[in-house]
């Protein structure tokens, strides 16, 4: 029961006191409330709240829950995008086919790998950059503003830029390598199975690290300076100050950033599809591109929905684990 409530009677689970703090007896009407009155009053109050929430709830249910349920049901059918009105229930066939497909298993592994490495590096490097950005040096405001450019740029622009600078003949990176005598390292970076995945990862880091840094920096500025002063007086080293003061105070923003970016990275389609198309030889295929190809190249709506359901379950699990992990810091 929240403190904002002012119910006229005590809820049934609490026993009413028999005397008031002044020592006088509690009036009979309060001490023995009529049965059910609590719930009627509560319902009356809550109904107004639910009425206010209803439009937003309806929109959320209509736009999120309904398609999710439809997608889940479709995953048990052989529905095709070309003939959506003719379909049969196929039970778990799509899921069995999915896990028997080596490209799906590879995409699954790539998605997890990319998400884990990208988010972990974004947090670590974001903290490092935040530490630099919080310093009071001339011109730091300029860097704080400029840093966000990578995050504001549309993904297509970022990918086209990366593709141009890594072109085998006309790309800046290869021209630079040849100029400094390292021509043997020049290559079509996105077309090299050994480098394509790393480049997709680099694009994620390039885009997101400044956003992490600015968010962490904002949270760092809210930490009371007294804590650091007290720690210094007690002889705490810079590392201990960071570990025992900065990090615990960043846990909420960290939770938000990690949950957001686990979702973003695991769901991300644009970076891979636009830069490599999932190749070379499936080296960068991730769940999102695999599902897209099944839906739009094979028009297999049921099969691709099964892939979507697997992706949803992985996401829910990943977000749950993140909450546990970062929430655990609070308990410590």
């Amino acid at each position: 029961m929240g403190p904002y409530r002012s119910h006229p009677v005590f809820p049934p689970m609490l026993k009413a006191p028999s005397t008031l703090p002044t020592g006088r007896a509690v009036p009979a009407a309060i001490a023995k409330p009529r049965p059910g009155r609590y719930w009627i009053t509560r319902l009356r109050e809550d109904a107004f709240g639910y009425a206010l929430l209803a439009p937003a709830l309806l929109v959320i249910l209509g736009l999120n829950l309904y398609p999710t349920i439809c997608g889940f049901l479709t995953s048990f059918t052989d529905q095709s995008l070309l003939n959506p009105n003719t379909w049969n229930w196929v039970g778990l066939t799509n899921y069995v086919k999915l896990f028997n497909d080596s490209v799906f298993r590879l995409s699954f592994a790539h998605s997890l790998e990319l998400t884990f490495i990208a988010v972990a590096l974004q947090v670590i490097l974001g903290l490092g950059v935040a530490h630099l950005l919080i310093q009071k040096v001339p011109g730091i405001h300029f860097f704080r503003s400029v840093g966000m450019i990578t995050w504001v740029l549309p993904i297509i622009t970022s990918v086209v830029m990366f593709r141009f600078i890594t072109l085998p003949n006309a790309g800046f990176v290869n021209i630079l390598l040849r100029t400094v005598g390292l021509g043997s390292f020049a290559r079509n970076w996105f077309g090299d199975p050994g480098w394509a995945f790393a480049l997709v990862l680099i694009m994620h880091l390039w885009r997101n690290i400044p956003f992490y840094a600015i968010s962490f920096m904002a949270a760092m500025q809210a930490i009371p300076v007294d804590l650091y002063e007290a720690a210094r007086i007690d002889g705490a080293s810079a590392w201990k100050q960071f570990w025992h003061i900065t990090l615990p105070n960043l846990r909420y923003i960290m939770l938000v950033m990690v949950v957001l970016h686990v979702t973003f990275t695991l769901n991300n389609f644009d970076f891979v599809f636009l830069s490599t198309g999932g190749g070379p030889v499936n080296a960068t295929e991730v769940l999102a591109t695999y599902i897209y190809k099944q839906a739009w190249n094979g028009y297999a709506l049921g099969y691709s929905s099964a892939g979507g359901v697997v992706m949803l379950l992985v996401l829910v699990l990943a977000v749950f684990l993140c909450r546990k992990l970062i929430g655990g810091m609070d308990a410590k």
Partner: protein
Amino acid sequence: MRFPLIFVYSSNIMRIRFPLTCLVAIGLVSTAASVFSKDIDLWFIPMSTDGPQKPGLLQWAKENFPKDLPKGVAVANNYGPPVYQDAQQKFIVQGRRGKPDVIEGVLEGMIAFQKAGLIAPLNDEFDKWADKDQFVPSTLKALTINGKLYGVPYNTNVRVLLYRKDLLQKYGLQPPKTWDDLVQAAATISAKESGVAGLGLTTKSGSVRTFQEFISFFFQVNGGENPFKLDEKTQKWSVNTTPEKLGQVLQLYEDFYFKGSPSAANQNTRGNDYQATDTDYYSGKSAMVPMGPWIYANRTTGDVARKILEENTGVTALPLPPGGTQATYLEVKPIMLNAASKDKGNAWEVIKTLGSKEFVAMDNKLEGVNPPRKDVAELPDFKNDWWQQAFTAQLPTGVALAPVNWGLVVNDMTEALQKVIYKNKSAQDTGKELYNALQQRVQNNQL
């Protein structure tokens, strides 16, 4: 006289509310107008106002639609999404609602629309059209499925081999006629001309050009036939090739990248997208390239490109394998009629306008592609243009794709090709694997 405060307050609110009300009203009226509009909704990707449309096309539409269409019929003027893939996906999802009435697209898209029952056959209207005999039969055949015509062609082209005349002459080479000639000539140029690869190819996953180049070489090995064949009696598709033939094409790709030192094609360009393939050729980084006519438009990008494309480029048919058939990928762009259109009569009038001699001539000249109309091909702009003539000469060797769902087959072929050029597997083993994958597509009814 002073107004009570409440009036001042209300007049302030009115100041904000009035323009807001006007905006909402305008929004409602325009939405209602678009819903109840009698305009023909046309999706014509090169005209799309959401993308880098060609100004000449829009200007033509603006001037000629009001003139050519029956009185009271107008065309909605945003022309749909700017990308074929995007338009195709949207049409599959919303086409059954009747909008757009007319859609322009690519052959692979038309096949999908036909399978989905989204487009109407045009035989009745087409047969009554006075211009029907002006269309090149092979382009009409490409748009015919089960004896029914599903689109009017307005734009066509084939893949040929472009070569640098100056470089071949410099090293005493002839334009290649066979696959072996091609590999050897390209390897010679790679070895002797610093900074130039003998051959440029597109091999990126998901790039439609990767498939178009592969299938062009495949058609030559497969007697100019598609990899799938329809049994007329059972109306079932079967695989119409062998693991050996697929292996032969894959072996060609292996030779391009690994035969000779240096090889015909630069290994560092594996995974190139079509933009890189085009840029490499007209910037002088590659000496030969399988290509369509559109690259000629790049001659205006600079002096190097102009000199290469206008003065130093030769055009020849794609080289042949031993015992092969002269064949190549034929691209035909159709204009289609939505089967659910509520105004099919006027929609057909729009199709006729877009298939007219005037429009086809203007569009084909602007895009640098070949005319599917005989009367347009006879115009001086086309007849006296060496580039147009070089490509038009190869049109009879063009093979249109069979009416199957190519989406997953394209993935299979690209993956097989990449396995070979990245040395994951031998060409012959990959040929067998690809053959099995195609068989699977047939057995699983995925075509």
